[in-house]
């Protein structure tokens, strides 16, 4: 059985797992007007930016000029995840650890800078690092190289849902015999070129007030807010090690099939709906997509049949990183037996039992994490609490 033995989180609410979890329980939103560039000329203005950090404190100097911002964040998260799992890859067999990450647009800010050099100055000014710094596989490659992970390497791109596909791909490699897999996603496209691309999805919130811009399942929902960051998890098939949770089930569907993803995931996990303690909803904040998700949750669990939460209301949607953070947060919720809240929702839809504004303690045996993208990709992962803790 696949378990989560290590977590590394870098989100707008904190550059470490502990900071992220503490801020989440305090219901502290990190959404604010964009600072990375001047958003005045754009229709949308609010984002969740990762806290500023000095790359030199975290990364070898060689890696700094060759990596996009999101790759720097990914390398910080991966190192933290391995440390949290108590793993030094040098102690593992030569091919004993691999890595599968998800991506959306790749290293977009790096790419915009090189495109600008190309067109403003000429092709001879393009960095030699451009050939790999922006492409979708960069985080997997850099994590593998930094930590000597020679096992299977993979990259999933599935709109904003890729992280949970990556988890399923990593679980497959564990089943095929690799003892340790790193997985998840860390992402950012907080540069003007990425911003404009996200705006044309038609789903970004135009509201300038940070506490009103992203309100999933609210009568006043007007779209989502982009953020940056993500999580890297260490997965192992060793249930004797201390672990946060089991990856008990997964399903992946496309198109008008979110409800099928939920049902197939529960079948894969062999868990009944009534045994699910909390749903980490995708929470697009787009009225039509919220309605589809609320209907899918209600169809499986009944009206207000399960607590539902969207902690990403505090971070914004981290592209492919969002579902990875939800998985990390859900694992922490199982460990600490408390459901983190959803913030800024004042007029929730009546059919969901949304956990609003403050954490809700309880006995939580399992957590369902959902993710979707505007392109129609749906993923569901069910986490269950370690057996030995069921009675604590």
């Amino acid at each position: 059985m696949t378990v989560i033995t290590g977590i590394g989180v870098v989100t707008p609410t904190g550059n470490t797992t502990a900071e992220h979890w503490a801020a989440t329980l305090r219901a502290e939103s990190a959404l604010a007007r964009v600072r990375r560039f001047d958003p005045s000329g754009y229709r949308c203005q609010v984002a969740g930016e990762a806290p500023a950090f000095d790359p030199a404190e975290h990364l070898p100097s060689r890696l700094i000029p060759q990596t996009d911002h999101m790759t720097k964040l990914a390398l910080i998260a991966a190192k933290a995840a391995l440390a949290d799992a108590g793993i030094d890859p040098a102690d593992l067999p030569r091919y004993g650890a691999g890595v599968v990450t998800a991506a959306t647009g790749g290293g977009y800010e790096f790419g915009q800078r090189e495109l600008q050099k190309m067109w403003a100055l000429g092709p001879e000014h393009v960095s030699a690092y451009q050939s790999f710094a922006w492409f979708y596989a960069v985080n997997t490659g850099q994590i593998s190289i930094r930590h000597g992970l020679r096992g299977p390497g993979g990259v999933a791109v599935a709109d904003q849902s890729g992280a949970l596909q990556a988890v399923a791909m990593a679980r497959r490699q564990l089943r095929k015999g690799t003892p340790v897999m790193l997985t998840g996603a860390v992402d950012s496209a907080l540069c003007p070129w990425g911003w404009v691309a996200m705006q044309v999805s038609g789903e970004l919130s135009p509201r300038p007030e940070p506490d009103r811009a992203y309100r999933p399942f609210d009568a006043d929902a007007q779209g989502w807010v982009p953020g940056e960051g993500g999580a890297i998890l260490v997965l192992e098939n060793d249930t004797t090690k201390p672990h946060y949770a089991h990856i008990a089930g997964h399903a992946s569907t496309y198109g008008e099939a979110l409800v099928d993803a939920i049902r197939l995931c529960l079948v894969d996990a062999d868990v009944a709906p009534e045994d699910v303690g909390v749903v980490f909803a995708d929470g697009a904040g787009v009225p039509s997509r919220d309605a589809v998700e609320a209907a899918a949750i209600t169809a499986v669990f009944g009206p207000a049949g399960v607590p539902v939460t969207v902690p990403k209301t505090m971070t914004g949607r981290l592209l492919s990183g969002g579902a990875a953070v939800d998985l990390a947060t859900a694992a922490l919720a199982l460990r600490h037996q408390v459901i983190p809240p959803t913030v800024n929702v004042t007029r929730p839809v009546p059919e969901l039992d949304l956990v609003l504004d403050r954490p809700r303690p309880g006995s939580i045996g399992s957590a369902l994490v959902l993710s979707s993208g505007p392109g129609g990709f749906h993923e569901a992962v069910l986490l269950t609490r370690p057996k030995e803790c069921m009675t604590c």
Partner: protein
Amino acid sequence: MSPQMAGESEAMVVLQERRVALTGIGVLAPGGIGRKAYWDLLTAGRTATRRLSHFDPSPCRSKIAGECDFDPLAHQLSPQEVRRLDRAAQFAVVAAREAITDAGLEDCDTAALRRGVSLGCAVGTTTSLEREYVVSSNAGRQWLVDQAYAVPQLYDYFIPSSMAGELAREIGARGPVSLVSTGCTSGIDAVGNGFDLIREGACDIVLAGGTEAPLSPITYACFDAIRATCPRNDDPEHASRPFDRTRNGLVLAEGCAVVVLEEYEHARRRGAPMYAEVTGHAMRCNAYHMTGLTDGGEEMATAIAAALDQSRLNPDEVAYVNAHGSSTKQNDRHETAAFKRSLGEHAYRVPVSSIKSMIGHSLGAIGALEVAACALAIDDGVIPPTANLHEPDPECDLDYVPITAREQPVDVVVSVGSGFGGFQSAIVLTAPDRVPR
């Protein structure tokens, strides 16, 4: 056998129940659109590389490309599809339609939730993104790009899984849909992912493949910057020369292949002809360098061994090796070492060839084009040659099938790839009637 490979065998006992047949092929390649034109080109040993014509290549160090002569309207794409889809997505849709027809899936009633997509692509919609960037930034004059010039397709260009979504609509899939993007092993790994989805029971049919249309100024600029591409600009037809002493870089190309993967019994029940069976796939990382390769080829050798092990085949049963053969000195020596390490003495006997000598290197598509070529080799009993191989590199001392195709029965094929990021992948195909031991 290493401990982790032993673990792989054990797990296989549980997972090997479901077998995977390859029942349809669609191809769009330099020198030929459609699988027949493609196979004619490869078996004739003709090259399709030429001077780059998509844009003025005069500022580029390498001015050569494997280009597809592709008119989307002539291939039944609608005007709206042409407007909506990046060139790489157009390729994928056209190849998917050919593959679906070839497999006879039009009337198949398999449930939508049992159908999936696994498309490989390394650099996404680069061409469209660069074109739109130039307008929105006014040719790089504005860091704050102008939202008024953002086209409605920009979000789909931004996240290339939109291309996998297009294929989901083509095959009516509501099951798992994914874009696999492991650099230049994307095409192999996407087929491998589709193979696993069927084996694991998540799907009965997967449209799998790879597509790439990367021939834009920024691509040439960044490959020029690392001097990975071939500057033999006075002789573009013979520029891609894997395993030849005079080779000096890869030839960038575009193209696409899509195959239909199908659960074996599912295919047999509906009487679908099979080109091949997919029996093993493995990925490893070199954990060494984003663009460099290790000397001994150990990681690729390990991937080959794992894929053969999953297939329950011995190295000496391999009848053909489809090489990565990217036409760089580093690669050719790396994989020659990897073949010797994984296949032992048999490496000197088995035919090895690189079709990149004819169609260039289409990054995330080429692995799927090579899988398609392997399936056609099994089906037709012909091994495509390595074109342009006149002066063998003394350090590359295997049988690379120079210049001329070889007619001989092919029942077990290994195809390999290496990619930026350190990715090393191998996939195994067998003749469909070859019962695994």
